[in-house]
């Protein structure tokens, strides 16, 4: 299960390293207080749950095939998040750092483009909109 509606235990991902791993690269996406110049009070993440799980599992499998030495752990939050909360956390552990960085980066890039998760931003004036990264 990659999706969760509870706060992500980011610190827990630091324990992913095996004794053969010399490098851990962790990426955390955090809800920030503005986007495109507009203030944000909270964000609601909505997923097509079963498909999102399958897609993330596919990304993990793909990257494991490309980089057999690297192990990945991924958590994505859904539901209502406040500013400062982690929306996604990805840990890549590896014997060496180059692969840890590369796999962590590739994982978040692929998640952002292929996993069916959407976010609605809420603004201080009570309005809200779905984020459209193509616009």
């Amino acid at each position, binding site marked *: 299960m990659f999706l969760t509606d509870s706060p992500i235990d980011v610190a827990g991902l630091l324990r992913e390293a095996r004794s053969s791993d010399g490098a851990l690269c962790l990426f955390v*996406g955090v809800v920030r207080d503005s986007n495109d110049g507009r203030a944000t009070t909270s964000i609601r*993440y*909505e*997923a*097509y749950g*079963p*498909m*999102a799980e*399958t897609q993330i599992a596919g990304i993990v499998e793909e990257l494991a095939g490309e980089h057999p030495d690297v192990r990945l752990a991924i958590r*994505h939050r859904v539901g209502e998040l406040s500013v400062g909360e982690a*929306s*996604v956390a990805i840990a890549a552990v590896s014997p060496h750092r180059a692969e840890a960085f590369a796999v962590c980066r590739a994982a*978040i890039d692929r*998640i*952002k*483009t*292929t*996993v*069916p*998760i*959407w*976010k*609605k931003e809420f603004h201080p004036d009570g309005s809200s909109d*779905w*984020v*459209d*990264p*193509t*616009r």
Partner: protein
Amino acid sequence: MRVEVLYFAAFRDAVGKDGETCELADRSTVADLWGALARRVPYFARFPVMPPAAVNREYAGPETTLVAGDEVAFLPPVAGG
């Protein structure tokens, strides 16, 4: 035949529901289903091309043939992470 259509995010807001059962001719494709929806929903009619679609939770192209009971979703631009 009948298929289940799911709506998410901006699409759900536009249609006003999470999903519905649609009646289609046998051997209809994903593109046929989109065409039927676009004739009915003004918001969809404004799309110049069909958005990404999933059949039974996997991405599927417009020429994919549907079978009865398929779960079909048209996906707004994703913005995860």
